[in-house]
């Protein structure tokens, strides 16, 4: 019996062998055929060699997570085969170049199908040796009997820039390998992929891409950054769009300069952001406080990776939660959002700018390597440009400034803590402000009463901001005995776990983390056995929850080896707990 449209495909090899591009190409071909997918990337901190993989799970229904079992393994070298063959589900198979030194018996002995294909030979014969990866994708498609046309579409698009000949050769190579593999192995291979006729077009997007897109849609017109995994591609993406969308990007000399540039740009009236990882954020901590003190809007993307220090620079972790909430000396308002899906990334991308300008203070988007680089298919409408709003808060227009009758006070005391803001350049609103404590005009003063009022004013904004803080998202049946509690990038995997547990568990997912939605959290967590699932060692969210709600959640599942959770792992953890 065949299993249709439910499999995981894994391409693995050394850095530089084209794992990522091949994987992404294959994913695209599947999405074009109306299939849903979830793509997981895993790469080492080196440019050539080592062992990387790209794993794509495919289904007819929307996917939110990868899973452990692999059905088609595509190792580009021997090491990859050895390392991953055990992940292949019984009955699944391994497609590899005939030239690799592989003991077929050994593979077969493990209950996996060895499916050698003369990939290099085919590439040479029909095109060029460099097209072996195209052959591999062709062979994979052949084994699962997926429409070759969809793969061909992607080949055409991806090689277009290299000219007609290259496209044609790749098409020949792909087809030859397809036929070769189909002929020899398809009959005996259980898993199949079929395109869904008339399925709507969908987007294949990573967290970083969604974030960058959301920022652009939300009016971000300046970005400064210093390259750092896993957020470099946000800068690179915006840089590519600089010309067409009038967004200025600056690869700065360091992270301190980057955040200072973004503060300068925001001060001057332009929506500006930075993106970095924990190490770069560490360097931004002092300037973060400057933005807080001088009431300058600011959006910071912090893509977490394995720490501490340089740590595991290309891997994932949720280790910076308490750091970003408490970073910088003294007390000032900040908002922290931790999107959990591509859709939330897009939304946080534009929402953060509204919040930053509304409350005239820093907003931190806390992402991580897993979310940043995983690909997912989403409906076109899910990346909802119609819902995008550009709300600049109490920003005074030139006309409003013209009409001013009193001397302009940049830091005027108000009920909600938010002062009407003028950007510098208007004759009626000439002002200077300072990182020192200042009065309503911005003049430096150490006077006690002013100090107390200014502190209260600034912190009042955090209270006011509660109106915009969303409660946790709940998924799954109310009243389910197990309550999975997560934040940020674990949304997808926890949702999958909830689905698999069919009524036994529900999910409480936090995107908006600071100011902490304490009341909503307490309500959501009133019943059931809570289990906090976090990608860190010390249970940072659990501690935050205790500090803000005094709710002691007894159970937790944690992972801190730089790899994301799989649903299987969480299920196993829950079993342990329920024992």
């Amino acid at each position, binding site marked *: 019996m065949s299993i249709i449209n439910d499999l995981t495909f894994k391409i693995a090899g050394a850095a530089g062998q084209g794992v990522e591009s091949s994987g992404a190409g294959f994913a695209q071909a599947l*999405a074009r055929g109306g299939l849903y997918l979830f793509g997981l990337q895993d790469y080492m901190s080196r440019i050539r060699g080592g062992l990387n993989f790209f794993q794509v799970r495919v289904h007819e229904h929307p996917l939110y997570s990868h899973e452990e079992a692999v059905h088609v393994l595509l190792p580009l070298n021997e090491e990859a085969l050895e390392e991953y063959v055990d992940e292949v589900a019984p009955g699944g198979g391994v497609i590899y170049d005939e030239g690799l030194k592989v003991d077929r018996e050994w593979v077969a002995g493990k209950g996996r199908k060895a499916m050698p294909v003369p990939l290099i030979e085919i590439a040479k014969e029909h095109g060029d040796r460099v097209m072996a990866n195209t052959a591999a994708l062709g062979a994979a498609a052949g084994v699962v009997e997926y429409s070759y046309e969809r793969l061909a579409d992607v080949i055409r698009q991806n090689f277009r820039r290299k000219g007609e000949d290259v496209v044609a050769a790749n098409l020949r190579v792909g087809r030859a390998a397809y036929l070769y593999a189909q002929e020899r192995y398809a009959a005996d291979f259980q898993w199949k992929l079929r395109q869904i006729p008339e399925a709507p*077009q*969908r*987007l*294949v*997007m990573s967290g970083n*891409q969604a974030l960058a*897109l959301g920022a*652009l*849609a939300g*009016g971000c*017109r*300046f970005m*400064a950054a210093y390259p750092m995994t896993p957020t470099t591609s946000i800068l690179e993406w915006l840089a590519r769009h600089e*010309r067409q*969308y*009038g*967004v*200025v990007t600056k690869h*700065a*000399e*360091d992270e*301190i*300069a*980057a955040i*200072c*540039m*973004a*503060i*300068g*740009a925001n*001060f*001057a*009236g*332009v929506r*500006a952001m930075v993106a970095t990882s924990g190490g770069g954020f560490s360097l931004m901590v002092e*300037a973060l406080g*400057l933005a807080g003190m*001088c009431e300058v809007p600011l959006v910071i993307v912090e893509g977490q990776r394995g720490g501490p220090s340089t740590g595991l620079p290309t891997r994932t972790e949720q280790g910076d939660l308490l750091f970003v909430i408490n970073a910088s000396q003294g007390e000032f308002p900040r908002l922290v959002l931790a999107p959990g899906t591509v859709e939330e990334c897009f939304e946080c991308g534009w929402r953060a700018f509204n919040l930053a300008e509304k409350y005239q203070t820093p907003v931190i988007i806390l992402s991580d390597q897993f979310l940043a680089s995983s690909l997912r298919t989403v409906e*076109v409408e899910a990346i909802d*440009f119609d819902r*995008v709003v*550009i709300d*600049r808060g109490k920003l005074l227009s030139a006309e409003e400034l013209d009409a001013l009758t009193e001397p302009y006070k940049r830091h005027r005391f108000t009920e909600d803590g938010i002062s009407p803001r003028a*950007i*510098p*350049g*208007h*004759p009626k*609103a*000439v*002002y*200077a*402000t*300072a*990182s*020192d404590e200042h009065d309503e005009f*911005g*003049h*430096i003063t150490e006077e006690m009463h002013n100090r107390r009022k200014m502190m209260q004013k600034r912190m009042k904004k955090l209270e006011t901001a509660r109106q915009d803080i969303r409660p946790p998202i709940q998924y799954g049946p109310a009243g389910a005995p197990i309550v999975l509690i997560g934040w940020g990038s674990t949304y997808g995997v926890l949702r999958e776990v909830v689905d698999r547990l069919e009524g036994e568990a529900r999910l409480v997912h936090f995107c908006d983390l600071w100011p902490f939605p304490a009341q909503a959290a307490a309500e959501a967590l009133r019943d059931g056995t809570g289990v906090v699932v976090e990608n860190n060692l010390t249970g940072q969210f659990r501690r935050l929850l205790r500090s803000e709600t005094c709710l002691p959640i007894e159970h937790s599942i944690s992972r801190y080896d730089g790899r994301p959770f799989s649903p299987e792992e969480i299920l196993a953890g829950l079993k342990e707990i329920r024992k």
Partner: protein
Amino acid sequence: MTVTLKDYASPVKPTWCPGCGDYGILAAIRQALVQVGLAPHEVLIVTGIGCGSKLPDYMHVNGFMTLHGRPLPIATGIRLANHGLKVLVVHGDGDSMGLGMGHFIHAARRNLDLVDLIQNNQIYGLTKGQYSPTSDPGFITSTSPEGALEGAANPVALALAAGATFVARGFAGDTKGLADLVARAIEHRGYALVDVLQPCVTFNRKNTYDWYRERVYNLAESGHDPRDRLAAYQKALEWGDRIPLGVFYQTERPTYEEQVVALKEGPLALRTLTKLSLQEVEQLRSEFM
């Protein structure tokens, strides 16, 4: 309507020590702005933290008193967001040559159109008298009890090596000459360094008004050609018995802002922020299909 000194007057009284060189710098900046005919709202002064960095509080002008060492990158962001504003960075020698050294070099090579004025009193004033990167070797302070052991950082030589397009030195004791120099720096298209010798009457008992007066001389009068980079470098290394003042070097090179495609249509800050058009949305979406 012509701009006058009164336009820049502020009710706030400086907190500087009587006799501090910063008074001269404040006067010179005001004078220079009037000379070039800029009104307060057209100007933005970005400073760091230190005695001198409180300057924007003491005149009527747009100002941002930021962090120790960071006014240059902040000014960079401001210029990129609104290159319609005339931006002056004003900061101490600790600011610019200590914490801010990296930014200083990068600002010089970046050639944004801004003025970088260093209040160089060769000491940390606000923290009460520690030696600074520009302190003369052997200078004894609370953190250099055996005398400063390092070669002094030379803003002029460093700016030249970094590729600055305008490099000058002034003296706070000569308000008139300094005002002229600042005016020239403002009018220069590109990064313009003005290193200002600024006596700190409280903590620097070595490099006093008199000490400087006995040594300074005017480059232009001495026949120096500011288009000659090598000669400028040679002059930059001169320090001790004779200290050159004036413009060491000036050249033309496209500014950074001019080269940024997205700025060709005018300052970002002045454009109305709107949602993406339907066409733009379509195009962006197609990238992901």
